[in-house]
């Protein structure tokens, strides 16, 4: 038997192509296509009073200008509400092109099509839109006040209000009767996924075939297909959606259909020409999606040992101008807040609020970083209050391995009960304690202090629901060349699926990873899929590939048994090294590629290979469908729960308040690991985004609703010089929910970063950090405020 490929840190199969510059990203396609550009709202909230295109009409290269008035049928209706929820009582979604009113800077008002992008922008620049300003609602405070309204018919700016309790008693009573109580007010600011490649759409209408082919830089081609078909009123079978190479997603590209995903295909059909739109960076800032912004009020009751007896959390969530993706983010915050801890009575209430800003949809972590921030800040506050070690408070509250599966008593974002399937949280905390050097830290602190340096340590843990349903599928086929082709409907944005899924298929079929070609995100090849988000791809598609490949292996054995004759039964056979052979007698074997030939009984031969399968040649299996291929689906019963703990040591400059990370440590458990090299890379990338979110990145709106830092110059994504060396350690508690024992890994790195950095800064400075991200000037202000309080007290 070959050594198992699952578990090996193989280098990626997709890399050579990408490294040579042979990648095919959206903007690399459709040379010669017409280019679309958009006139977007320069104001946050206004009625449109006029659109004047006169000056634009003599630009050479102009092909078409469209406003809302020009849009027919369902294209003129608001975009769909993707994830309805009973608590989402006032859902509002945008139009493809603004219908008389704009609700955020960047909202699309006019679409222009021209012969190239330069000219399209010339046209866009010459179109005059006049606006009558309405008062903008910016920030959670203004939204909560409810004096100004984003949507006239959404009172108090409330899109949704939702309450969950864990069924372990009344939280307020538990808090009131607890020996100790604390309350915390917390804030997290806006950030964004910010993939290096923005969105983009290319559409080709084949008028003869009446088929629409759409390429989109999306995280879900199958669902874009259905959405486009519905909006354009085409039979789904006439629409193909292909996801080419994607330059990162991190959540923003799961939203669909974007206005451009409807408008560009519609323009291509209308004009009978290929049309392409590629988002520029400013457009990405002002018209894609953001995340994170929340205010939280936490009340907690606990005992002498720091055990949580009652926890009540109120969340005000800024959902931006519209809610096409529903209320997934605050649901995830509310439910994943509990982390690896057992809490007495828990009550969480969130209010999801409209503001005149870009929509808010999941960004890697998808509400978890905010939840973990709330929980871990609470743990630290309890430790401070009781004078306990911060790790000891956490240990006192951990769910124990023998309590698994553990039911948190809540409903998760997949609509299923939040039941942790497996995990060993005490070991996880022990590992992070060692890795970050918790026990020796006081000596380290003293040594630093002796040099006039100020350092602090922080720690935090999380649990992440991954691999949710409804399902993923795969088609596995052995070609007569021996090549194995695996097609799965979900998309890929850099997670290495061409390699990891190949490892899974290769193990089942007894071939090398080089023999397997993986195809993703192409509805021509596989039509049924959900998408790549929420750390679900390897769990759902990985298991689907294994299931489909196992069916192929069984079929191969049946066909091989018939061909080998001589009383050989399928059960006697195994697939090894590209051959189907007898376990007891490996010399009795047949090549897998020959089995593929035999699997398709032929009347006509066209080469040596195919001769073998003709009617007067060898024995082909009877009663089999032609083709050595099979389709398999994996439908999880519910999510599987990965977990991790991070530890960080920071140094703060006593003079300048500069904050520097000295070391960053990660303990990570995502069950059985298919490719450790890829998982490690996912963790690194997540941590870097977490550090960005903790110290550098924030989306800033001014009072008028202008996004003031809509460029890479001003929105500070960390460079290599800002990301410290990341030390990782892995543990494996296999999931019992799926055949391969997998849990997802895509989001892990980013989840607790703000929480642990806040913890470490608090530890270094001895002052409460309640708001993230934190800049040196904000730390400086915190110090000044503390100084002022001290002086007041002494006066």
């Amino acid at each position: 038997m070959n050594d198992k490929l699952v578990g090996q840190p193989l280098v990626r199969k997709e890399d050579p192509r990408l490294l040579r510059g042979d990648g095919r990203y959206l903007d690399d396609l459709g040379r010669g296509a017409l280019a679309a550009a958009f006139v977007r709202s320069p104001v946050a909230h206004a009625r449109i009073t006029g659109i004047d295109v006169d000056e634009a009409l003599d630009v050479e290269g102009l092909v078409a200008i469209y406003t809302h008035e020009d849009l027919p049928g369902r294209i003129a209706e608001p975009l769909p509400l993707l994830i309805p929820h009973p608590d989402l009582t006032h859902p509002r979604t945008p139009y493809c092109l603004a219908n008389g009113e704009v609700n955020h800077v960047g909202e699309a008002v006019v679409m222009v099509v021209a012969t190239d992008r330069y000219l399209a922008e010339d046209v866009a620049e010459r179109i005059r839109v006049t606006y009558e300003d309405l008062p903008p609602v910016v920030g959670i405070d203004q939204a909560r006040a409810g004096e100004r309204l984003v949507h006239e018919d959404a009172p108090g700016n409330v899109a949704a209000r939702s309450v969950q309790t864990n069924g372990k008693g009344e939280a307020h009573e538990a808090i009131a009767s607890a020996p100790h109580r604390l309350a915390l007010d917390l804030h997290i600011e806006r950030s964004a996924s910010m993939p290096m490649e923005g969105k983009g759409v290319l559409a080709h209408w084949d008028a003869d075939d009446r088929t629409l082919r759409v390429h989109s830089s999306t995280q879900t081609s199958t669902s874009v297909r259905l959405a486009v078909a519905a909006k354009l009123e085409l039979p789904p079978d006439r629409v193909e959606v292909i996801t080419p190479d994607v330059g990162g997603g991190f959540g923003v590209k799961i939203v669909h259909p974007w206005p451009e995903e409807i408008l560009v295909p519609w323009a291509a059909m209308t004009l009978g020409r290929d049309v392409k739109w590629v988002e520029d960076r400013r457009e990405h800032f002002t018209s894609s999606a953001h995340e994170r912004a929340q205010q939280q009020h936490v009340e907690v009751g606990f005992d002498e040992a720091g055990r949580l007896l009652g926890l009540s959390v109120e969340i005000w969530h800024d959902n931006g101008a519209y809610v096409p993706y529903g209320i997934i983010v605050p649901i995830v915050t509310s439910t994943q807040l509990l982390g690896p801890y057992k809490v007495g009575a828990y009550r969480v209430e969130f209010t999801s609020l409209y503001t005149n800003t870009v929509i808010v949809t999941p960004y890697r972590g998808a509400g978890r970083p905010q939840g973990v921030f709330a929980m871990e800040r609470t743990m630290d506050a309890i430790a401070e209050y009781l004078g306990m070690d911060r790790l000891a408070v956490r240990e006192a509250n951990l769910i124990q391995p023998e309590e698994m599966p553990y039911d948190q008593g809540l409903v998760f974002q997949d609509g299923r009960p939040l039941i942790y399937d497996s995990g060993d949280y005490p070991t996880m905390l022990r590992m992070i304690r060692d890795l970050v050097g918790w026990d020796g830290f006081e000596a380290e602190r003293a040594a630093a202090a002796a040099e006039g340096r100020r350092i602090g340590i922080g720690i935090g843990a999380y649990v992440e629901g991954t691999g949710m349903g409804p399902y993923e599928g795969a088609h596995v086929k052995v070609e007569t060349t021996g090549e194995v082709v695996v097609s799965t409907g979900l998309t890929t944005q850099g997670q290495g699926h061409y390699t990891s899924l190949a490892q899974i298929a290769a193990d089942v079929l007894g071939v090398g990873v080089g023999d397997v070609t993986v195809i993703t995100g192409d509805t021509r090849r596989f039509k049924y899929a959900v998408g790549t988000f929420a750390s679900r791809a390897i769990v759902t598609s990985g298991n689907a590939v294994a299931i489909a490949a196992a069916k192929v292996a069984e079929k191969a054995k049946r066909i091989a048994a018939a061909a080998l004759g001589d009383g050989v039964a399928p059960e006697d056979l195994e697939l090894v090294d590209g051959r189907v052979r007898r376990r007891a007698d490996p010399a009795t074997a047949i090549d897998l590629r020959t089995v593929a030939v035999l699997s398709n009984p032929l009347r006509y031969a066209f080469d040596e290979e195919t001769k073998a399968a003709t009617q007067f040649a060898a024995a082909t299996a009877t009663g089999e469908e032609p083709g050595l291929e099979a389709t398999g689906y994996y439908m999880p019963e519910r999510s599987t729960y990965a977990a991790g703990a991070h530890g960080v040591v920071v140094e703060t400059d006593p003079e300048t308040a500069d904050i520097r990370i000295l070391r960053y440590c990660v303990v990570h458990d995502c069950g059985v690991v298919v490719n450790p090299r890829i998982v490690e890379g996912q963790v690194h990338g997540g941590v870097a985004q977490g550090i960005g979110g903790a110290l550098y990145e924030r989306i800033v709106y001014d009072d008028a609703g202008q996004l003031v830092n809509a460029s890479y110059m001003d929105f500070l994504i960390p460079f290599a010089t800002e990301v410290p060396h990341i030390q990782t350690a892995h543990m494996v508690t296999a999931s019992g929910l799926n055949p391969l024992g997998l849990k997802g890994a895509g989001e892990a790195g980013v989840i607790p970063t703000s929480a642990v950095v806040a913890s470490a800064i608090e530890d270094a400075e001895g002052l409460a950090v309640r708001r993230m991200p934190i800049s040196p000037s904000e730390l400086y202000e915190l110090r000044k405020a503390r100084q002022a309080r001290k002086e007041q007290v002494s006066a």
Partner: protein
Amino acid sequence: MTEQVHQITVTVNGVARRGEVPARRLLADFLRMDLGLTGTHLGCEHGVCGACTLLLDGVPVRSCLILAVSADGHAVTTVEGCCEAGGELGPVQQAFQDCHGLQCGFCTPGFITTITAYLEENPKPTEEEAREAIGGNLCRCTGYQNIVKAVLRAADLKRERESADE
């Protein structure tokens, strides 16, 4: 309005390429739109991310900030030109695969060209220097850990290959 076009000749990856471009066409767009060399990517179009980095007469520049007309008469090396003569991966490219220095691959061409030029100047960087060398390029996927490793590995590979050639 019609745009005036200019004749230019740019040596791209060793081959003289002629073109007719409007004065405002970016060098990146000339390569991508006119020549179909789409390895050079645009991440921001305002000079910050470095995805569009290529070598102009051997020096790394941001092709989103340079007009095609100003490259007239100059030599350009893009990521496509960082392969070995036989088409195999060049040392920097190979190092990126070995070290898992890329995920989505969108930022990668800018890193490959930047590092290629850097190793000419400093063939044996320390880890600290390697980190500095890539300090002007953004990557949203990798957290840079493996890119730093790839710089060091590329330096080794380059030396090995050069000494094998001698």
